[in-house]
């Protein structure tokens, strides 16, 4: 493959909030872009998020995720952007060549700059029978309910009280699923109180210092046994409670999808505050491998609002690394960095802030 044949300057892998934001910015600055996504539509996980975002003050505050997806989709309708959907990046080859499988067709694409905005995968926790049908990831439940209009069950146990656990519980109630209980192993709720309060008003018991011991059922989930835990997170004898549920929803965190960054030869580092292994990146979202950028959950688990800001930074910096310093790009970068700092100074920005700071202390 001759590099001079390439029509693209930047390839963006992933069309979630980070990828779309990166594309919109870079195309506006006049770079030739390809966006690749394995889904049939753009938007990543935004397409199932019916709740209103707190967002940053200038970006989508009070707008529902599903509507943000539509706005971003409009922004990438740009002559500089080529969209490849139903297309999986299956490999990174030397010199920034990506192997892409689209339907049954295999193609190779090259660009001098690549932004990986590959997102994250849901975590699973260990308990007997966690493999039974009826144990679902929270994101999967959201997809089935909010995108396809199908109910995964009638009575649910939610595990995890982070924002995803709280929000998806509320969305289950909206769709007509009874949330029998929401359990949290820590002694306090992980997500925003606003979300927890909505559940309490609907009468959903939120049980902190509780864990799931096992699921029951032969062919699929018919129940769950939960128990109170001690300070070492071990179940306390005699506190078992048997719940009759037909689904168990897990909202126990996410792990960055770093496989392609590994393959590209980026320096990948384990940072617990960022959710796992992430490619080392500068504040400009550039990795240690020349020409490779990362943005969004793939660079550390955070939220859609910050993913969009990181995407903007990555898009503008990738453009500058091709065309040199540009006042418009600088404005975008400085503005986004400022907003990221503001969000990460909030009480729920502590973890990602510590994670990102840790990265910067590790000298490249």
């Amino acid at each position, binding site marked *: 493959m001759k590099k001079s044949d390439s029509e693209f300057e930047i390839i963006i892998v992933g069309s979630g909030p980070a990828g779309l934001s990166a594309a919109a910015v870079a195309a506006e600055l006049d770079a030739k872009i390809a966006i690749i996504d394995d889904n049939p539509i753009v938007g990543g996980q935004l397409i199932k998020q019916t709740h209103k975002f707190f967002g940053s003050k200038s970006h989508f505050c009070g707008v529902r995720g599903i509507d943000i997806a539509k706005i971003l989709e409009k922004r990438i309708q740009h002559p500089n952007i080529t969209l490849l959907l139903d297309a999986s990046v299956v490999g990174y080859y030397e010199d920034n060549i990506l192997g892409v499988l689209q339907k049954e067709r295999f193609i190779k694409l090259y660009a001098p700059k690549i932004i990986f905005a590959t997102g994250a995968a849901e975590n699973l926790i260990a308990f007997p029978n966690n493999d039974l049908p*009826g144990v*679902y*990831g929270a994101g999967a439940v959201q997809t089935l309910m909010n995108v*396809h*209009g199908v*109910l995964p069950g009638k009575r649910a146990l939610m595990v995890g009280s982070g924002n995803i656990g709280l929000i998806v519980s509320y969305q289950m109630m909206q769709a007509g699923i009874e949330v029998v209980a929401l359990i949290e192993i820590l002694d306090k709720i992980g997500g925003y109180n606003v979300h927890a309060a909505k559940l309490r008003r609907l009468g959903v018991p939120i049980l902190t210092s509780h864990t799931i011991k096992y699921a029951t059922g032969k062919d*699929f989930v018919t129940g769950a046994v939960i128990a109170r835990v001690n300070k070492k997170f071990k179940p306390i004898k005699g506190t078992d409670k048997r719940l009759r549920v037909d689904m168990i929803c897990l909202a126990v965190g996410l792990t960055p999808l770093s496989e392609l960054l590994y393959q590209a030869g980026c320096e990948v580092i384990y940072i617990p505050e960022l959710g796992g292994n992430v490619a080392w990146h500068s504040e400009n979202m550039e990795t240690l491998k020349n020409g490779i950028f990362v943005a969004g959950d793939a660079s550390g688990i955070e939220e859609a609002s910050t993913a969009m800001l990181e995407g903007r930074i990555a898009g503008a910096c990738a453009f500058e690394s091709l065309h040199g310093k540009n006042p418009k790009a600088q404005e975008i970068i400085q503005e986004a960095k400022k907003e990221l700092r503001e969000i990460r100074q909030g009480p729920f920005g502590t973890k990602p802030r510590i994670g990102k700071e840790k990265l910067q202390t590790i000298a490249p």
Partner: protein
Amino acid sequence: MPKKISNRIEHHPILTFVKGRLVKFYFEGKELQGYENEPIAAALIANGIKVFRITEKMKRPRGFFCAVGKCSSCLMTVDSKPNVMVCVELLKEGMKVERQIGRGKLV
């Protein structure tokens, strides 16, 4: 008339669901209904079907899990082709969907 589809959200405070044509398909030889171009898994769950495959060694039932084509929990045999991720493969009229036992059989 085939049995009425259950497990569908009829009313939602925020969302309306735009669906394709209602089509027939087959699960283990039994005729069911689903909407064209929805994931096969959505059509199966709407019809109350939860067990999608049986594992090779431990013979454990497996079903829907990640919904986004990442986890391989939902591999089924579709039109004689094994290892189809039904959470992302879209439903077409007349599809023959089968529970996959173990690794499935290559034709």
